[in-house]
Each structure stands twice: as structure tokens, then as C-alpha cells.
């Protein structure tokens, strides 16, 4: 694609170009470099901040970044304590990580939609998807990890037999076991699927609307662009929050003694 060609010359090409990930490899070994790069970059930034704060943490009066992170931890801990009757060591960190990570990855959406791809184009990289959460690999990676953790907790708390039994007897009792099995299976599989697709769908459509706005003449762009960006701040935060709350809920449901 020609660098200087206006986006409006060929809208379909423009959008398709933007939705094309920067990928290498084929088949299973196909790796979306842009997704990996930006998600790991954001995770790295958070890890550096977390490491610096965690290293010189003090139980006196907190200040600066420690204050911010403490209020975040308090916020997540409040949700965890509401959902969990018994204390659980791993859910809090998972919830916090998801919230911060998803929030930051979603926030990449607010960077002007052409800025980073254009810069990359100048450096010879012709495809770039900036927002990792518009790649289903990212959202499914999180939701499947949580799904596996849910299975682990189910087996750990109820035992393998107990877990299987819960497939058989809910929701209609043991006499309708096959129906129950199918229903519960669908219910369980719907959890990670809906979790991942909700975030992916929201971010993907958000990105798409930004692309459509970018197709407008330059003197019209600022009005719908800024309006959508302001509205999108809400979507970004809300989706991160929903992902975290549902994660906490699913794990708490998995670690209940019995339904």
C-alpha cells in the first residue's frame, strides 16, 4: 500500500489492511508478533512498576505509586472477599493482573488508529495491529487459563468423582443424567467462550468504529473521533472490570463445596 494514498481511496483495502496482524510462521507455529509484542511490552511495564513498588514497600504512610496500587489491591480484595467465603491466595493476584493488563491493552485503542501502523510502515513493517485484545488469541489465552484453573479447583475441592457427579445431577436430578451432562457441559464451556468473546468483540468493534471514523474527511474526523474515544474510555474500563469480576466469580463457583 502506498504511504501517501489517502485512506478514502479504497476503504475496504484500508480496513482489511488494518485488521491484518503482523504474523510469521504457518499453521500451528503462526505467531502474531504485534499481539505478543504489545501485550508483553505492557506486561513488562507493569512488572517493572510492580517490582519497584514491591521492593521498597513500607507499612508506614504509603505514598506515590504504592498508594495507587494499594487502593487497586483493596478494590480487588473487596471483590474477592465478597465472592470467597474462604481466603484464596491466587485469585486476588489473578484479578489484579487481569484488570491492569486488560485495561492497558484496551487503552492501546485510544492511540490514534493510524499512528503506530504508519510509524511501523516507515520502518518497513507493513502490518500492525496495535490493540492485543482485538486479537482473540489474547482473550482466549486468559479465559482458557482461567478455565483450566476452574477445572483444577473443581477437581481439588470436589474430587474427580464429585466434579463428574456435578455434571450428572444438575440441574434436573440424577434421573435425567444425560440431559444434565449436556446442559452442564454447555454451561461450563460457555463460560470461557463468552468471557473471551465478550472482550474480543467489544474491542474489535471499537477498533472498527475508529477505522470507519478515520475514513471520513479530515475536517469531520475530530468530532465523531473524540466522542467515540470518550465513550470508549468507559468501554475499556468496563470490559476490564467485567473480565476481572467474572474471573473471580467463575473461580469462586469452581471452589464451592457443592452447588
Amino acid at each position, binding site marked *: 500500500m502506498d504511504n501517501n494514498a489517502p485512506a478514502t481511496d479504497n476503504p475496504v483495502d484500508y480496513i482489511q489492511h488494518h485488521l491484518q496482524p503482523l*504474523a510469521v*510462521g504457518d*499453521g*500451528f*507455529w*503462526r*505467531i*502474531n508478533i504485534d*499481539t*505478543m509484542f504489545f*501485550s*508483553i511490552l505492557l*506486561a513488562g511495564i*507493569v*512488572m517493572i512498576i*510492580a*517490582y519497584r*513498588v*514491591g*521492593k521498597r*514497600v*513500607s*507499612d*508506614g504512610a*504509603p505514598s506515590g505509586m*504504592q498508594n495507587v*496500587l*494499594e487502593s487497586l*489491591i*483493596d478494590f480487588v*480484595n473487596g471483590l474477592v472477599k465478597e465472592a470467597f467465603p474462604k481466603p484464596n*491466595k*491466587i485469585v*486476588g*493476584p*489473578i484479578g*489484579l*493482573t487481569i484488570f*491492569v*493488563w486488560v485495561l492497558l491493552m484496551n487503552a492501546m485503542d485510544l492511540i490514534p488508529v493510524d499512528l503506530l501502523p504508519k510509524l511501523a510502515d516507515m520502518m518497513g513493517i507493513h502490518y500492525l495491529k496495535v490493540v*492485543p485484545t482485538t*486479537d*482473540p*488469541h*489474547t482473550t*482466549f*489465552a*486468559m479465559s*482458557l*487459563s482461567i478455565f483450566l484453573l476452574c477445572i483444577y479447583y473443581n477437581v481439588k475441592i470436589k474430587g474427580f468423582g464429585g466434579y463428574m457427579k456435578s455434571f450428572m445431577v444438575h440441574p434436573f436430578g440424577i434421573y435425567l443424567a444425560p440431559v444434565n451432562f449436556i446442559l452442564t457441559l454447555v454451561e461450563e464451556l460457555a463460560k470461557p467462550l463468552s468471557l473471551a468473546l465478550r472482550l474480543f468483540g467489544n474491542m474489535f468493534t471499537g477498533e472498527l468504529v475508529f477505522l470507519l471514523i478515520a475514513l471520513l474527511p479530515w475536517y469531520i474526523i475530530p468530532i465523531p473521533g473524540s466522542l467515540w474515544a470518550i465513550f470508549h474510555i468507559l468501554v475499556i474500563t468496563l470490559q476490564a472490570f467485567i473480565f476481572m469480576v467474572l474471573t473471580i466469580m467463575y473461580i469462586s463457583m469452581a471452589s464451592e463445596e457443592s452447588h
Partner: protein
Amino acid sequence: MNVTATLFGQMITFIVFVWFIKAYLWEPLTQAMESRTKKISDGLAAAEQGQKKIEQATIEFSTRIDQAKTQASSIITDAESKSKNIVEEARVAAREEAQKIAKTSSQQLEQEINVAREKLKAEVAAMSLLCAEKIISKEIDKKMHDKIIDEVVNK
């Protein structure tokens, strides 16, 4: 979406991220928050204890003050009664002394009166003798005169 290495890469990233946050942020920070909570509650408990101690000290202080006040007032009343006694004794002694002095002085006065009376008697006698001599030189009726002298002397 195909299952690709990207998915597993993202899963590994996610797991590492969670582990890192748990190890380096969540645990130290929650521990710090807990220990801060404990510190604050300890501090509040200590403050409450201090308040109690102050209250006790105030009570003790006021009882001590009361004791001291009663002691002082009893000392004052003692001193007052003692001083009254002393004044009373002094008054009695002074009165007795005064009476004694009055008695002796009146006795002396009487004596002096007596002495003066004797002197007066003697002088009267001498004067009468003188008178008699003068009368004698004029009249020689001794009998009459003797009678007069006797009357005078007897007086």
C-alpha cells in the same frame, strides 16, 4: 481462529505475569497493608490505655488533694483551739496577777492611811497643847482648861 502458538504464548505470558504480580506486588503489599492495620490498631489500643491511665491518675490526684485538704483543715482547727487555750490561760493569769496587785496595793494604802491618821492624831495633840498654852497664858482657870483639853484629846 485457529489454535496457534500465539495462544500458548499469550497463556504463558499471562501465567508469568500473574506469578510475578503475586510474588513481587500482591504479597508484599498485602502484608504491608495488614501490618499497617495492626500497627494502627495497636496504636489506638495504646492510646486508649494511656487515656485510662490518665483517668486513673486524675482520680488518684483528686483523692490525694482531698486528703491533703482535710489534713490541712484539721491542723488549722487544732492550731486554732490551741491558740484559744493559750489566750484563755494568759487571760486568767493576767486577771489573777491584777487581783493580787490590787490587793497588796490596797493593803499598803490602808497602812499608809493608818500611819497618816496616827501622825494626824499626834499633830492634833501638839496643836491642842499649843492652843492650851496660849489659852493658859490668857486664863488660868486650869480646871476648865483641863476639861477642854481632855475633851479635845478624847476627840
